[in-house]
């Protein structure tokens, strides 16, 4: 899922400093699962915004709502119900949601309530770690299922680098060297070709280096 975390409240207060009526809008997707922007977090942020405004001696009213998703037009369209009732929107969805609102509601002032951090998973309660970088040309079949793009500090395709020591990455002793893990995994599953293979210079155009990416599925378009 997409991992996010709430921005510091002072940063958000600065965004909405001129707004008197604020729509705090959560999303029931990934940000609900990672407890960054679901219904509960909307309630907390709206309360913090009201407190911040109270402290500044400013009037404020908030609308708290949570859409099923903010990355589909049909749900963004349902925001019609609040037309004329807010001066600013603080979206607690990932950056996709904020962009969708900005795309589809050209006059709306929309601000991000969270920092979108990574594509990751829950490593343990309250801890999430990055696992994939959405590079558009997956190589996991060659690397024992462990991603060198997202999980190697240098996104090396032929690792490890000279900084790998004792299974740890040179950037920090708490970070595993994923290339050590990849080699260990390929040995465990007896993938000799994988171990010997040398990846060619990579074309990163699918990873966003060729501009914004668009996915078209002709079997689904209408």
């Amino acid at each position, binding site marked *: 899922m997409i991992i996010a975390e709430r921005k510091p409240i*002072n940063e958000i207060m600065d965004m909405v400093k001129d707004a008197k009526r604020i729509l705090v809008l959560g999303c029931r997707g990934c940000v609900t699962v990672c407890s960054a922007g679901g219904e509960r977090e909307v309630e907390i942020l709206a309360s913090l915004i009201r407190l911040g405004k*109270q402290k500044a001696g400013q009037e404020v009213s908030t609308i708290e709502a949570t859409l099923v998703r903010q990355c589909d037009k049909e749900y963004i369209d349902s925001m019609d119900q609040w037309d004329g009732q807010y001066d600013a929107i603080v979206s607690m969805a990932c950056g996709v949601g904020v962009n969708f609102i900005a795309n589809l509601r050209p006059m709306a002032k929309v601000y991000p309530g969270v920092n979108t951090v990574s594509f990751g998973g829950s490593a343990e309660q309250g801890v999430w770690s990055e696992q994939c970088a959405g590079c558009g040309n997956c190589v996991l079949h060659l690397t024992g299922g462990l991603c060198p793009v997202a999980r190697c500090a240098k996104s090396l395709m032929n690792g490890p680098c000279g900084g790998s020591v004792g299974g740890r990455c040179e950037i920090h002793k708490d970070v595993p060297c994923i290339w050590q893990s990849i080699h260990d995994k390929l040995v465990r599953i007896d993938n000799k070709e994988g171990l010997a293979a040398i990846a060619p210079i990579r074309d990163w155009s699918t990873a966003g280096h060729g501009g914004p990416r668009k996915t078209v599925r002709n079997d689904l378009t209408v």
Partner: protein
Amino acid sequence: MSFTPNIQAFCCHYTSQQTLAEGPQGLLADGFPKSVTIHRLVCTGKLEVSTILKAFEDGADGVYVAGCPLDKCHNLMGSQRAAKRVAAIKKALAELGVEPERIEMYHLERGFHPGFVKAAQEMDERITTLGPSPFKAELSSLPAQTKLMPSGCQGGAK
């Protein structure tokens, strides 16, 4: 000008048994400050961040939570959870430029214990020194809040 703080205390069933046994008059006789209003909960682990923030919105100058000792919670981890939520609120208060000391977590023994009164006295003294909540700035009108229930905000309501 003298200032009597408004302090809201959220206490679990176990740490606040004294309130039931002695009643308000008995507590006052023990030296429990008048400024503190007690809210009893089954467990502090039930306490939501939003409930504490609401207390500040409703005019509290200070808030504290009293739960079991960290390693002896009746519900195992309830008071640990509460402590983490209190820490998160301290951080948010600091980000808003408000003294984080206005919220505190106490881990108290269960049943009758002088610590229960002492925590209230400590908060009373602390908040009296800090003065009124900065959230009580003058407003030209009261803040309004509209809360939409889940059925009203399912987007396309499919």
